[in-house]
């Protein structure tokens, strides 16, 4: 945008690395779903998805070069989602 970002000097290698990591995690998630079943594999699949979203956010969405205020918005959103999902699941599970 207005100022040359610090990532520009790296030649964009981090984008290629991020893509490779995302593709590898996707393949891993797929493979694990074929060999394992049950509750643990569900949580593992969701954990891998969370890691993938963090990679997308940090590299592709440029959170690595964002200001504290911008990162704070992202963190608060994640916190709200966690509270929402935990509260609803706990409510249903404990009835």
């Amino acid at each position, binding site marked *: *945008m207005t100022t040359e970002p610090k990532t520009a000097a790296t030649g*964009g290698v981090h*984008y290629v690395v*991020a*893509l490779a990591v995302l593709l590898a995690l996707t393949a891993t998630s797929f493979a694990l779903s074929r060999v394992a079943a049950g509750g643990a594999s569900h949580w593992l699949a969701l954990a891998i998805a969370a890691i993938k979203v963090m990679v997308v956010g940090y*590299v*592709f969405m440029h959170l690595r070069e964002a200001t504290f205020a911008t990162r704070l*918005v992202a963190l608060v*959103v994640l916190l709200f989602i966690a509270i929402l999902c935990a509260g609803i699941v706990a409510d249903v599970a404990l009835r």
Partner: protein
Amino acid sequence: MTTMTPPPDPGEAAPRRLEPQFADLARQEHAVRLGMWVFLGSEVLLFAGLFALYAAYRTEYSADFTAALHHQNLLIGTANTFVLIISSFTVAWAIHRLRHGDRRACLVFLAITMVLGALFLAFKAIEYGDHFAHGVVPGRGYASAELPARGARVFFNLYFLMTGLHALHMIGGLAVMGWLVTRVARRRATPAYHAELEMGGLYWHLVDSVWIFLWPLFYLTG
């Protein structure tokens, strides 16, 4: 909107656009980015409500959800995941190339992104068509002989609601990408200032991120 127009940089067809309420472009950039993240946050919370609904119903109809998951087209769902991840890369790379002044590469990668987005929607249409052919439709018309249980009906209602909402976001993203192509082609987005490209990219990545969670929930965790 009224704009103050500083002298254009040499080699740039379009001048930088500084809105009157900002002292400089750096502060404008910060405000634009922060505002976009707040918008993305509201979008995420929209989907979060649906994810929470999924979590609640999955807890209640665990066996039915598992049975329904085994009837999903894993091949198409997985292919679409790879398509969207690659499209996120092509958007990021398009922005990266424009930052380095390579307008042609930027346009090429934006076009590739649009092709990948259209491919995703085409796969989704094929998948929906297959569901409809087997009586798996949203709402009262649901008539699957293989999955008659109430939990399966709930699963597919959620599936159509969440993936349908996601597909609408994809269509919106494609429209944004088309607009960005024209902005770059007409040199309105420049290497020095391309806020619209950055914000459009953020939106596309958000849509990708939502799918990253939809994939395990509707295809993998059976």
